[in-house]
């Protein structure tokens, strides 16, 4: 039992904007009206937020583990956690180890993370890594946009079959929702090609286009009633002028709900590297007039990082552009991944445009329940640097100082210098917690209301915003004080949220011969056993009709 007394509460899910009130937590880790007994934290003068929710990150599984293999030079120089009685050892940096990932997220006040890209074939691996990430609660998204068995059904116009196949896969992976990355492009990459035209048939298909995959998957998500809408990494990521593809994609969604991943990478004007510019205004206008869409910023921060994505063809291009190490892993039938360590430099005009574009999207999309704080960790920057982004959002003067350090030629390419908006604490709480929780459909997260999970973070008010958000005074997860005065006190295991959509039982027999033809493991061994998940929590699916 716990009482937080006298803190200034920021709870956008319930419209509370700095009111001073007490919070009470029971022994089951939920907010309640009152408690008697237990500890009281005197939070007078402090600021209280719901725990952070990272809607799009890459922290567990084959792809991030591949990146760990590729960056020993970063492991060697980065933050190290020493083994103590309550804490396992680990390394931070670009591709943190599992225990360190939990400590670093919790250390910033983040209590829920969504692993955004999981191939079903290695889902077992992802769940094992998630079990080794302490404290935070988790969910995962299954990669479906390049699943050839699915694509074949869509090519043949078999919508019902396709819907059943997707539902079967989501449950086989024991995951929470559906992710599509460069639909059609990653399948084409199996032959060394890509899919850059939304309305052209994909390599190897006569009719099926990326637009067709997107429209069908968005409809399938709604028909299955998954708590989170289709989570989409659009075609043509990173390419100058890709704003056209992004807007075209949004129009393909035809009014359906969707979440657009790391939109910064999809908001460029121009027609080449020299003319590349920010097209954030066009994209922001679309979001501002379409409230059923959400996005995470995928903001860029200057410095070293490692890019990890299922977008294999893009990573081959990045390797050719930079000459850096290139990792690639195509996954039979399903997807792929590409990994390239990368450095964003302020002196590089393209990187400078990217840096500005991410911030512009966060500032121009008005509703913080529509645009969320993310760097597509580790692609745009490491998650433990989120406090730097918060500072950039809250302090226009600081933004102007940073802008002054960029090359002069940037001025014609971006609109950031004209933007004076400063995020309030309420808006930060929405963009980092309440908004992503709502988009994910996690009703007990991102909110300090009675009945919700007692995941919260208490900051000491400080004019130095980066310091304030980087060093919370207390972090509470499920009613337990996990961080106090910078120390890790407790390391409870988090839950894993999974969805159980319905499918026709005949789907199994339908899948079996297709599976045996495409895959190289036995059908019985493929679905992940529920026993492998640490504290699974099954979320209900409410089909749209």
């Amino acid at each position, binding site marked *: 039992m716990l009482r937080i007394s006298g803190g200034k509460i920021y709870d956008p899910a319930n419209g509370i904007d700095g009111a001073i009130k007490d919070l009470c937590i029971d022994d089951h880790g939920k907010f309640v009206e009152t408690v008697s007994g237990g500890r009281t934290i005197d939070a007078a003068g402090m600021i209280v937020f719901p725990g952070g929710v990272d809607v799009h990150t890459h922290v*567990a599984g*084959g792809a991030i*583990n591949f990146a*760990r*293999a*590729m960056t*020993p030079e970063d*492991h*060697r*120089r*980065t*933050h*190290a*956690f*020493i*083994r*103590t*009685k309550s804490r*396992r*050892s*680990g*390394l931070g*940096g670009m*591709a943190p*180890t*599992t*225990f360190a990932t939990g*400590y670093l997220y919790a250390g910033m006040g983040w209590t829920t993370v969504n692993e955004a890209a999981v191939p079903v*074939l*290695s889902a*077992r*691996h992802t769940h*094992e*890594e998630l079990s*080794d990430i302490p404290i935070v609660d988790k969910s995962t998204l299954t990669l479906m946009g390049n699943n050839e068995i699915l694509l074949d059904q869509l090519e043949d116009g078999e919508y019902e079959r396709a819907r059943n196949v997707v539902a079967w896969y989501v449950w086989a992976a024991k995951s929470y929702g559906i992710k599509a990355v460069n639909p059609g492009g990653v399948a084409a990459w*199996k*032959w*060394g090609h890509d899919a850059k035209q939304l309305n052209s048939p994909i390599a190897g298909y006569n009719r099926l286009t990326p637009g067709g995959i997107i429209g069908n998957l968005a409809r399938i998500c709604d028909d299955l009633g998954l708590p989170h809408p289709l989570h989409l990494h659009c075609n043509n990521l990173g390419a100058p002028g890709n704003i056209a593809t992004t807007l075209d994609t949004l129009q393909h969604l035809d009014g359906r709900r969707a979440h657009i991943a790391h939109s910064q990478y999809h908001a460029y004007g121009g027609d080449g590297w020299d003319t590349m510019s920010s097209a954030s205004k066009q994209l922001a206008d679309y979001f501002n007039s379409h409230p059923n869409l959400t996005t995470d910023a995928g903001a860029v921060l200057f410095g070293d990082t490692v890019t990890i994505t299922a977008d294999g063809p893009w990573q*081959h291009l990045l*390797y*050719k552009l930079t000459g*850096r*190490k*290139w*990792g*690639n*892993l*195509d*996954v*039979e*039938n399903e997807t*792929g991944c590409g*990994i*390239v360590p990368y450095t964003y430099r302020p002196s590089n005009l393209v990187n400078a445009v990217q840096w500005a574009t991410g911030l512009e999207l966060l500032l121009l999309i008005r509703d913080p329940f529509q645009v969320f704080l993310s760097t597509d960790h580790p692609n745009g920057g490491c998650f433990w640097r989120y406090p730097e982004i918060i500072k950039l959002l809250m302090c226009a003067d600081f933004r102007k100082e940073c802008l002054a350090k960029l090359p002069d030629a940037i001025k014609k390419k971006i609109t950031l210098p004209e933007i004076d908006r400063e995020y309030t604490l309420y808006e930060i709480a929405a963009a980092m917690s309440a908004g992503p929780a709502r988009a994910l459909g996690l009703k007990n997260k991102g909110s300090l209301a009675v009945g919700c999970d007692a995941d919260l973070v208490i900051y000491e008010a400080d004019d130095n915003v980066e310091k304030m958000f980087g060093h919370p005074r207390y972090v509470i997860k499920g009613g337990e004080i996990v961080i106090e005065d910078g120390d890790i006190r407790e390391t409870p295991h988090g839950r894993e949220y999974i969805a159980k959509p319905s499918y026709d039982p005949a789907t199994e027999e339908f899948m079996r011969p297709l599976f045996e*033809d*495409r*895959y*190289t*493991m036995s059908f019985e*061994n493929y679905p992940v056993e529920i026993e492998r998940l640490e504290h699974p929590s099954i979320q209900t699916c409410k089909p749209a009709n």
Partner: protein
Amino acid sequence: MGGKVTCTLGEVKQRADFIVYWGGNPAECHPRHFTKYTIMQKSKFLPRGRKDRTMVLVDIRETKSAKAADIFLQVRPGKDFELITILRAMIKGQAVGDAQIAVAGLTREALEDLVQRMKAAKFGCMFFGMGLSMTRGKHMNSAALLTLAAEMNAFTKFVAMPMRGHGNVTGADVIMRWQTGYPFGITFNRGYPRYNPGEFSTVDVLVRGDCDAAFIIGADPGGTMPQPAIDHLKRIPTIVLDPHVTHTSKLARIHITTAPQGIAAPGTAYRMDEIPMPLKPALKSPYPSDEEVVRRINEAIDKKPFWLPEGSQPQMLTAQV
């Protein structure tokens, strides 16, 4: 240099019309490889199976695998790195001298033919074994072959992957990486993971006599390591967990017989392409699993005083020395 361009074995089965085995002998060391994953498989894109595929074997001598090969290239021992470098030059149309080709032990015609076939392939896959990774040049040979595969992507789809050893060596690599960042050669002697093959690899630690106890699970260093390492294992308390009584068991202080993994004990193994496979035991064993034994040992250790003084709470290091 650095990185790896690869795929899961199902992609090889589906698409690979050009397969190279370099420094490996799958017929004897990975006996189901041809039939399950590579040359014998039929697929949607390669409906005639073996007839739609070309297999090239590169080795210093003709092994049993040569019978299955369409082309056998006998490279001079210790000259794999030179051969790979020549190929990397030839694929880009760079001139290579006769003397350089002679060093590798092959003819210009054979190499020109190979390069032409590689570029004409729809999907090329190179598997490499210890004949490459453990001979003169070691990891530089592996890096060179991986670089060749990466560079071939300028012309056509190409991948490469190592033929991993027996047992669950891939699983150990995968788990060590997610928990520590490093695949092997790790020390925790400062309380956090540090990596230096050659300093912290098992053979080096044993030969130097740096450890004062040894805990060996499912491996047999007493049968394979140099004498100074074996002598050290005899000197210190050595504990062995294994289904068999091994060479190491015979010089150990304690041997605990455990149930064989995958046969009588459940778990997960990671295949050479890092895909996790559940192990479902078919038999029962009177012996405990390795997991049960390790858990019980951990519980006993937890009752002993911790390695740090009571109440000390070292902060995170922001930069390693």
